[in-house]
């Protein structure tokens, strides 16, 4: 082996080992790296009342209720489980039924998630209003769901 090849092998193996180390660290810390849990994970992990965390999912259609003042009540779903959430305060513009949401707060003893901050989550779909309306009319619209299908149709609708 020439000196150049030696250096190249050394670098290759060093970067490989480093990548493996970082990969293992991130895997071990995965509970801290995630920004939020889905309702399904929340149920699986049996998180106790009072533990601060974030939950994320879709605002379940038909569950959003505006109470007096600036309070709202809704359910967050990921298709596996639903968690009831209450919140008092200003909501982001994108917040509505069927839209992604991340709520920060804690469960109370009754199993209701008391949120003190609500963030809207935007999905990866980008389209003009006319295309979205056309998709809804055709009945191929999937609220917050699998994104690839409507996007392909969106191309055809152009």
């Amino acid at each position: 082996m020439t000196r150049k090849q030696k250096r190249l092998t050394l670098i290759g193996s060093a970067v490989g080992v480093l990548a493996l180390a970082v990969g293992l660290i991130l895997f071990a810390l995965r509970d801290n790296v995630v920004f939020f849990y889905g309702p399904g994970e929340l149920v699986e992990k049996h998180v106790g009342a009072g533990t601060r965390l974030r939950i994320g999912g879709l605002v379940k259609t038909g569950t959003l209720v505006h109470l007096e003042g600036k309070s709202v009540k809704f359910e967050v779903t990921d298709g596996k489980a639903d968690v009831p959430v209450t919140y008092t305060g200003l909501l982001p513009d994108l917040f509505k039924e069927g839209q992604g949401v991340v709520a920060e707060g804690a469960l109370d003893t009754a199993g209701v998630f008391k949120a003190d901050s609500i963030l809207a989550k935007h999905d990866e779909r980008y389209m003009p209003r006319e295309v979205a309306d056309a998709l809804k009319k055709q009945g191929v619209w999937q609220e917050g769901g699998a994104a690839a299908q409507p996007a392909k149709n969106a191309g055809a609708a152009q």
Partner: protein
Amino acid sequence: MLKYANPTNFLALAGRLIPWLAAATALLLTAGLCLTFFVAPDDYQQGSSVKIMYLHVPSAWLSMMCYVIMTSAALGTIVWRHPLADAAQKAAAPLGAVFTLLCLVTGSLWGKPMWGTWWVWDARLTSVLVLFLIYLGLIGLWQTIEEPAQAARAAAILTLVGVVNIPIIKFSVDWWNTLHQPASVFKLGGPAISGSMLWPLLIMAVAFTLLFLTLHLMAVRNEILRRRLRRLSIDAAHAEEKSEATA
């Protein structure tokens, strides 16, 4: 190709390429911005805030592409000890830092009206901030070590260590739950972005790439000339010392 690894030949080539690249950049950037503001439609949810994407996404792509280019230059420095690779490395760091900052700032400006927050510590945002800090660290390293060949080797090692962050940035949105949305363009099953918004975005991406290439070539050229000047002034100082000694 190898002929241009010679700094003198590279200078000649860069001199010929830069005006054309600069002209193409100006043309495409103008066209891209006109498309962004006057042609591309508003989004069904985001309204006109979607226009931020046309700056944000190309900056994000370039911030990573710049790092990949810098990494290949770092290999050139460590494995082949080539001075042109040193110059390419050094020239890339500030450009990468600027594209990363642009990505962070535009993202923050979009996040406030859409998410309801300027910043969150999710995996995507944090890993891009780490990329920005790596760029700053590299710039600092280049400024601290005076001997160019030594600085190049130190920077190359830091660059190669930091390359681990690039796949983390790219796949953070798939590996972990993040507030940041998953990839819209480079995803399985084709882009999730409407055609009328995709092609202005791609034109902006090409424009940003050309902008990077132009600025990078200019910066590499400056670095080569700066090194020659340094060499000349050192030689001149030596010659002066010698003549004083003999006098």
